[in-house]
């Protein structure tokens, strides 16, 4: 299935949090493919796209973090002006609301993906696939 999985971690705003989180990933040899941070003053949400999402989820859970694992969609972006515009135009033309997003540059460095969460994953996937855009498959 054209699906990726995103790890979300609830964090209070205090120094050293991101350090602790990334250290855990490093020590478990989990590779970060992309990440985003959303800040709501007293707390924030850190989201990761990693190579081993289930392992990462269990790891954070075991270490007492407030964590969620959610399905997300990835669409390839052209490396040229207007690349992102083309992708979001396509998404909105299908009436899909982007809940939040991050960027993943593939290892080869030749391709970049727009990774985003939506309210209804299955329904959105149906609308987006087979429309000429390349969807990412990591799970």
């Amino acid at each position, binding site marked *: 299935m054209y699906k990726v999985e*995103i790890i*979300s971690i*609830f*964090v*209070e705003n205090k120094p050293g949090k991101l350090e602790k989180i990334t250290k855990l990933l490093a020590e478990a040899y989990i590779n970060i493919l992309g990440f985003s941070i959303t800040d*709501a003053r007293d707390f924030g949400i850190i989201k990761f796209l990693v190579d081993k999402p289930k392992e990462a989820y269990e790891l954070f859970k075991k270490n007492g973090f*407030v*964590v969620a*694992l959610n399905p997300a969609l990835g669409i390839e972006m052209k490396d040229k002006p207007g690349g992102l515009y083309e992708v979001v135009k396509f998404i909105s033309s299908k009436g899909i609301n982007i809940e939040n997003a991050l960027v993943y540059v593939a290892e080869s460095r030749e391709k970049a993906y727009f990774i985003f*969460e939506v309210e209804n994953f299955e329904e959105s996937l149906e609308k987006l696939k087979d429309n000429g855009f390349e969807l990412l498959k990591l799970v």
Partner: protein
Amino acid sequence: MEVNFWDPKIETLPQQDLKALQLEKLKKVVTLVYERVPHYRKKFEKAKVKPEDIKSLEDVVRLPFTTKEDLFVDYPYGLLAVPLEEVVRLHTSSGTTGKPKALFFTKKDIDDQAELIARNLVMTGTTRGDVLQNSMTYGLFTGALVMHYGAEKLGVLVIPAGPGNTERQIELMKTFGTTCFHMTPSYALYVASVILNKGLDPRRDLRIKRAYLGAEPYTEETRKKIEDLLGIDVYNCYGLSEMGGPGVGFECVYKEGLHIWEDAFLVEIINPETGEPVKEGEIGELVLTSLNREGMPLIRYRTRDLTFFFTEPCACGRTHRRISRILGRADDMFIVRGVNIFPQQIEAVLMGIKGVAENYQIVLENYDEMIVRVEIDREFFDGRIERLLKLKEEIVEKLREAILVKPKVELLEPGTLPVSEGKAKRVIDKRTL
């Protein structure tokens, strides 16, 4: 549900008659302390009130309060209303600092309190033939002895086990077929866990039907937990040495609030800051006047315990009013923007919101800024920030409705705040003036 009475006439006396009885007794006790206790006479004179000014129950507000400090004036015998040779018992209540409070009882005082205990036990289904394991501390503390006398008065077999030595507690339960026990809730939890760890099935291997737990505040969750672990009914009991020990307030089989025996105590609930009565149903400080005591009567004694009146009559048919389980201490109250607030009010709101975990903290900062720090429930988090922002909004709105002050709310990871067992510091006041 089966409802039993020890003294059906007095327990179901119509409120009107109960009030008339209270007034008659109030007049008597006020006259008694005025005539016999110099400290009370001085207090009354200062408040410009005389016994004959008490013409109705409402006049009680003219009488000065008795506080803990009053118990240390003319210490230790100064508050006696009878000659020392009439007194047969001393109990003390440990203050957190310094000397213990000294409370004295005549023979009749002890018998009166035992009578209340007998009512309480019967009210919860205990009868002759029951076996009561009394695992409170025997000695200066009122807890065990008062229960002991009350249970004997009813005709129950009492095992004066005292606290501690859990192995022996369980042996006693097994050997003598204990049907009820009297304990602190924290010890009961421990005993229950030991029983289960030994591989005993309390429903099969023991005969316990009910437990009387008191002497420290506990939550409904703790009650349910002990009930489930042991397969028994747990009844909340409230008392204080100043008012004769346990048995002041006691739950009936409906377990919704504690009946206070109004033929023995005049009950008021006041705003601890102003001393004015609160509206019925509002939280405030419990104030008690002993109506029967002759050795050392206390007038409008400030218990510092927070509670509220239940407004509906109880399904058991008893007319004596009910108070809620003790919600905390009046000393916990704080004032923000001129409004009196109890941490318990905030707790009640938080516990009713989905997504909130058990721990919280209230921080007060300069300019009367109130910050409520709330741990979120692990299961509630689904990765979406909107959900958390909505939760935050809901908490702010519901708190504002309940306490009339709009707080700031911070969401925290579970496990960040100190654990709430008993006396956790809920309020941190950083205000400087």
